């Protein structure tokens, strides 16, 4: 049940950010679906009580794979789907917390939060790069399945 509501919230949130980033209208739904899948993967892993890196890493791999496949299908650069897609788990809250702790002169917690945000950003980037290179490898095969199915 929580998965369904979380999916809807993340979908709508990514729709909002797609408009902010001036994404072409006909791609908004596709980008939001990639964002939703990414957030659901992130959420599922977060529920498992693992460390803070795994959820962001897995989520961005999902966004990367979905984004690249959509990019092949819609014949657009993959950035159009991955930039709005990673928005839900980009460490914005972490950056805000870091700022807040600095303001409160709590430098220990500020450094902890700041480091955490940095590592989340690194793991998101790693996930996207990994997914991209994987899909590049599989590209001929994916094109064959996608375009033979649509004919």
């Amino acid at each position, binding site marked *: 049940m929580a998965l369904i*509501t*979380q999916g809807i*919230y*993340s979908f*709508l*949130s*990514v*729709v*909002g*950010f*797609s*408009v*902010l*980033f*001036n*994404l*072409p209208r006909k*791609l908004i739904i596709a980008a939001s679906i990639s964002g939703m899948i990414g*957030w659901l993967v992130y959420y599922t892993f977060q529920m498992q009580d693992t460390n803070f890196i795994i959820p962001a890493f897995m989520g961005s791999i999902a966004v990367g794979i979905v984004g690249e496949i959509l990019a092949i299908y819609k014949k*657009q*650069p993959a*950035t*159009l789907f991955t*930039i*709005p897609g*990673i*928005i*839900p788990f*980009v*460490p*914005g*809250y972490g*950056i*805000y917390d*870091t*700022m*807040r702790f*600095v*303001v409160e002169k709590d430098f220990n917690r500020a450094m902890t939060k700041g480091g955490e*945000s*940095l590592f989340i*950003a*690194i793991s*998101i*980037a*790693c996930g*996207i*790069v990994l997914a991209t290179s994987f899909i590049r490898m599989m590209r001929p095969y994916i094109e064959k399945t996608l375009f033979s199915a649509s004919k």
Partner: protein
Amino acid sequence: MTKEQAKHIIKIAIKTGRVMLKNGAETYRVEDTVTRMAQSKGLQDVNVFVIPTGIMFSADVMGETYTVLERVYPEGIDLESISRANEFSRKFTGNQIDTAEAYQFLEALNQPPKFKKWVRILASGMGGGFFVFLFGGSLFEFVLAYFASAFTVLFTDALATKHLNFFIKNILGGFFASLFGVICILITRALNLDASLNMVIIGPLMTLVPGVSLTNGIRDLISGELLAGSAKMMEALFIAIALAFGVGIVLQLSIHLL
């Protein structure tokens, strides 16, 4: 190919790269596009070097080295422009358009269609507002964050037309995002309702934090573009510092009120 033609091709390639870089495309994509556009018309020895604030290009034109430096000022993320530039470069390399047509396309690239203002404002409320739910906030906090985000984007859009330094712009952005949050909280306190300040501030702030620049910077670093990656990460760092300034001022001033 005459010298004149070669110069036109280089100009078109660079201007396309400029549109992409200005609107937030990754550096490797810009390098790739410009190189391909130049090579498709038979230019030799094409070298392109891109950093987030400029494009350097050099090619061999009839035995002479021709070098262009294009200074670019990043303007934030506009995915419509990237999509159009990509389509244009694909047509150009596929020899579907000639030089005169290409200049017309370039003109159009500089004026991409934008969403209507009210759609943008409503959507920004959605973007910031639904974040509250993702972080486990309540419906009431969602409504507050919705209005705070919408006002913040309205404000930063108005600021974008003024020629301000990016640091000052972000200080003001952070200041007003948290100011709207604090005002919302003060009103709810006056009405004897309960809402968490963190939740209401994070919504509008989410439209400003440099999460995407940070991630893109690391992505450039991973793929070996050390200079471009460092530049993007420094940009993200300084945007975060500027936001912290703005938020910090408001939190400090409101500490006695809340």
